[in-house]
């Protein structure tokens, strides 16, 4: 009984850590907003903008913000690498930009509607020009961190397998997942004998998405970045699926696209209706993969942050109302975080399963 209580306590502490740390986040963000707003108008300085607050969190940025107390910001500076057609290649720490408040070597973070948050170069005539931006942004850095985790986890596990001892430790956590991908995804969907060559890709995609989904739920570095809720990341993953499908597709796959058998002739001649649909389908499939993962993860983050915003929206009306709402928000956020853990697994699984289905279709022998 006693032991159970302690377990529950522990879970509660962990979950409240999940919730309370972004609370810290939120408070300073309000301060920042207050400050910004105070610059704009004196009357609206108490106003909290949930839209900005949420999008600041969900979007990519040039520095990794940890917390702010009043005007003191704790951030991890990240390298900015830009190539300008005018002044060439530049690289400097994002701390030089002072959180977007000053310019460095003619570069600053744009405040205009179209390029907000992006680095721009200010020309002599005062116009802003977007350089080619290869900065190690927060998301890129988060990708590197997750890569580090993946290398560390799986190479150490692989070494354990080479020792040929009974499985132990973390190996036992990962092995069911690996076997699940092999026996429940790749084998039945792609088919015996053909699935082996897709296994590395499927496993990599699965664990990459999973670890980034889960890290995204942790509010402090190395977590907290919205990697899989970013179109560029999901787009690249989908692109890899498209590439693998296209490269490994056999002649039946291409025949189905250009000259699908069993389809009435008038659908191919004179207007090649079927080929057009099939070719569109070729790109729609990975496109859907990209959108699904992005939308699910970004939406999860937005909802969690939305719940937090409630505290400050109510707090703006009457400060004590904010305190009153916070326990309810806490419960909602804990609930959402648990749902998001489930979503993390489901989305990683769905992406892997659909990729496997596309590979299976590309290598199917006959109909």
């Amino acid at each position, binding site marked *: 009984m006693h032991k159970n209580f302690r377990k529950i306590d522990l879970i509660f502490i962990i979950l409240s850590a999940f919730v309370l740390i972004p609370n810290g986040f939120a408070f300073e963000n309000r301060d920042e907003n207050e400050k910004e707003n105070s610059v704009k108008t004196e009357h609206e300085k108490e106003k909290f903008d949930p839209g900005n607050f949420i999008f600041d969190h969900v979007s*990519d940025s040039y520095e990794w913000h940890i917390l702010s107390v009043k005007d003191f910001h704790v951030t991890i500076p990240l390298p900015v690498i830009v190539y300008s057609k005018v002044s060439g290649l530049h690289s400097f720490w994002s701390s030089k930009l002072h959180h977007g408040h000053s310019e460095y070597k003619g570069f600053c973070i744009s405040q205009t509607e179209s390029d907000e948050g992006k680095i721009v170069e200010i020309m002599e005539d005062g116009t802003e020009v977007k350089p080619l931006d290869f900065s190690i942004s927060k998301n890129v850095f988060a990708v590197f961190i997750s890569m580090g985790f993946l290398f560390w986890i799986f190479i150490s596990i692989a070494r354990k397998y080479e020792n040929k001892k009974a499985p132990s430790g973390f190996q036992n956590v990962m092995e069911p997942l690996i076997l699940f991908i092999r026996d429940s995804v790749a084998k039945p969907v792609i088919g015996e004998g053909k699935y082996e060559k897709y296994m590395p890709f499927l496993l990599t995609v699965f664990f*990459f998405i999973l670890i980034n989904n889960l890290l995204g739920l942790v509010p402090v570095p190395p977590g907290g970045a919205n990697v899989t809720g970013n179109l560029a990341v999901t787009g690249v993953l989908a692109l890899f699926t498209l590439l693998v499908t296209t490269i490994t597709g056999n002649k039946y796959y291409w025949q189905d696209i250009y000259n699908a058998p069993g389809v009435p002739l008038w659908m191919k001649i004179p207007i090649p209706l079927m080929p057009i649909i099939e070719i569109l389908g070729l790109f729609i499939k990975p496109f859907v993969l990209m959108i699904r993962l992005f939308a699910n993860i970004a939406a999860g983050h937005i909802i969690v942050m939305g719940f937090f915003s409630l505290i400050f929206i109510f707090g703006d009306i009457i400060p004590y109302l904010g305190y009153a709402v916070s326990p309810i928000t806490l419960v909602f956020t804990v609930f959402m975080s648990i749902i998001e853990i489930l979503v993390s697994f489901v989305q990683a699984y769905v992406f892997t399963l659909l990729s496997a289905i596309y590979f299976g279709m590309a290598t199917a022998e006959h109909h």
Partner: protein
Amino acid sequence: MELITPGLGLVFWMVLSFSMLLYILKKFAWKPILKALKERENTIDTALKSADKAREKMEQLKADNEKTIKEAKNIRDSLLKEARQVKDKIIVEAKQKANSEATKIIADAKRKIENEKEAALDEIKNQVAGFSVEIAEKILKKKLEKTKDQKDLINKLIDEIKIN
């Protein structure tokens, strides 16, 4: 808008890092892991199969053993039977032999006794004859002192011979 416009830099780094991730994990993680898993499954498979085989073999051995024991028992029984027969035969033969031997010995003994008896009788006869002759001599010496008696006796003897 920023949320749905993928950044070029991020795409570039993502392509680079994901290709690297794919390559390195494939080479150093997935290949050894999948290979080890397959090997382990094969090992378990063959171990189970060989266990089955061993069990079959055990059963066969058991059956063989039982068969051997049964055969041994049969052989023992038949050997015992044979031995009994031989024993009986030997006893019977021994008895017969003993009987015949005994009769032979008895017959021998009888014959010897007979012979001894005859020899004894012969000796007695001879001695009696000797005694008779001596007695006769003595009687004759006394009687034949007279001539007449001599003549009579001679005649009588002659008569006797004649009769014989």
